[in-house]
């Protein structure tokens, strides 16, 4: 469960270029809810996600994850709950490390990284089985470096990496923005499947209104750092795709 309570985020406070990115925003996302957040550029979507992930701290207000107050804990501590997929496929993986090494780190997201060798044959087999689900033929290339893969492949692998370790919250920040339609489709389907199988609480930020319509069981429209519209599961199912387009016109 994610609780955002009266959170405000001001960048460059006191300077000429002061910006209030998120304004007194409150939001409760119960466990296993898959929330889609839409909104124009500069509406505060990404800032909200970064506030939840701990990449940036709130100017005021509280953030709780599973009831625990995490206002001052940085992103690497909140990784105990949270796995992330970034807009830029390059951000979610380490390009010079092999697929296997990347997965090894992901498997240790909530655990310490010790001085023993974890990339064993057994682990390799486990990773190969996981990757085979994607049907990309990458299962026999786990020693290849991440950097040799396409953006779509990397984004799909980042998704799989998120469930290599115990995961309760999945944050997807425009995961398909840099991808071609086919890769984007694969990534969205994989995400949907993982959210269901692993009973994840998920937030998806997207500019693709078709995705916003097709995925998730709650939809939020943001504008000027606040929530403008909030449709629950039932209300969302009554929405038509054209309604979404109207929000932006």
């Amino acid at each position, binding site marked *: 469960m994610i609780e955002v309570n009266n959170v405000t985020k001001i960048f460059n406070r006191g300077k000429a270029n002061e910006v209030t990115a998120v304004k007194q925003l409150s939001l409760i996302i119960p466990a296993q809810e898959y929330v889609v957040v839409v909104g124009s550029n500069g509406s505060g979507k990404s800032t909200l996600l970064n506030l939840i992930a701990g990449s940036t701290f709130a100017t005021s207000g509280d953030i709780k994850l599973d009831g625990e107050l995490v206002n001052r804990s940085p992103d*690497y501590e909140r*990784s105990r709950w949270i796995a992330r997929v970034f807009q830029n496929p390059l951000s979610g993986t*380490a390009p010079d490390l092999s697929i296997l090494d990347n997965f090894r780190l992901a498997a*240790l997201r909530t655990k310490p*990284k010790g001085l023993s060798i974890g990339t064993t044959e057994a682990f390799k087999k486990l990773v190969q089985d996981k990757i085979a689900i994607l049907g990309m033929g990458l299962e026999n290339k786990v020693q290849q470096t991440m950097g040799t893969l396409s953006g779509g492949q990397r984004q799909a692998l980042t998704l799989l990496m998120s469930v290599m370790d115990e995961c309760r919250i999945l944050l997807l920040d425009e995961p398909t923005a840099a991808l071609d339609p086919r890769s984007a489709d694969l990534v969205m389907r994989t995400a949907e499947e993982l959210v269901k199988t692993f009973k994840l609480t998920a937030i998806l930020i997207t500019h693709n209104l078709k995705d916003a319509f097709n995925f998730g069981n709650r939809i939020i429209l943001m504008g000027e750092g606040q929530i403008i519209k909030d449709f629950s599961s039932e209300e969302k199912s009554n929405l038509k795709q054209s309604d979404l387009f109207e929000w932006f016109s």
Partner: protein
Amino acid sequence: MDFYLTALLQGLCFSGLALGIYISMKIFNIPDITTDGSYTLGGMVTAVMLTHQQPIYLTALAVLIAGGLAGAVTGLIHTKLKINALLSGILVMTALYSVNLVVAGRSNIPLIGTASLYSAISLTENANLNSLVVLLMVVVVLVLLIGYMLKTDFGIAMRATGNSETMIRALGVNTDRMKIIGLALANALTALSGFLITQLQSYADISMGIGIVIIGLGSVIIAETLINWRLITSVWVSLMLVVIGAIIFQMVLAFTLASGVDANLLKAVTAIFVLLIVSLPRLSLLKRND
């Protein structure tokens, strides 16, 4: 011929420094030039401890800790105060000059009749050959230890820190702490080179470290050129190549001196040599594009 043997010995001594630069520059992507100071620190601590009749193993331990501390300070300044890595290194390096003078009590300490790592084991009559065997053992142990570490979970996290910081933070690694550890390790290795060289040349001098960072950089760049050329991905081979880079570097300098170049021009020759290695791959790349 003895001339080249000395160069080989020096190259092996400098492999610690080269591996240190490899860790800071290639693995962490941080340009660290604390090197000049931590190398001299290693030399001075060695000279002081040995002239006070301390055992070799204790001296080595003190050198590693001293170098590690120097690196950790650079790391702290860089990560906690958010100061540019180059500037952090320059600050610590500058301060270390005074620290080194205080440690030594004077600017030059000769080692006469003190214990030496190179006489700890005596296999042959020839002192140089004996040193060669000792140094080879030291370097093999270093490469094995670092290679193993880079393959562990901790090592993978280290490599990811320099490669994709956003990713590794999202995977639960405190990157600030990781960088501090990395710089401490790099400078401990650099100080170890000071330890080895001081015993090889039987003295430590306050100016022994001036411009020494270029040796590490040159060695790593030679290694990198070979790594890119042969498309090497193995960690072990990469580390071996860094050591070979350090040896090649000393060999080239020895050859330059042997061919009659004025010793005063040595630093200029060094700089030009590094420039050549850096630019060669780019030049050949241009040709391929034509």
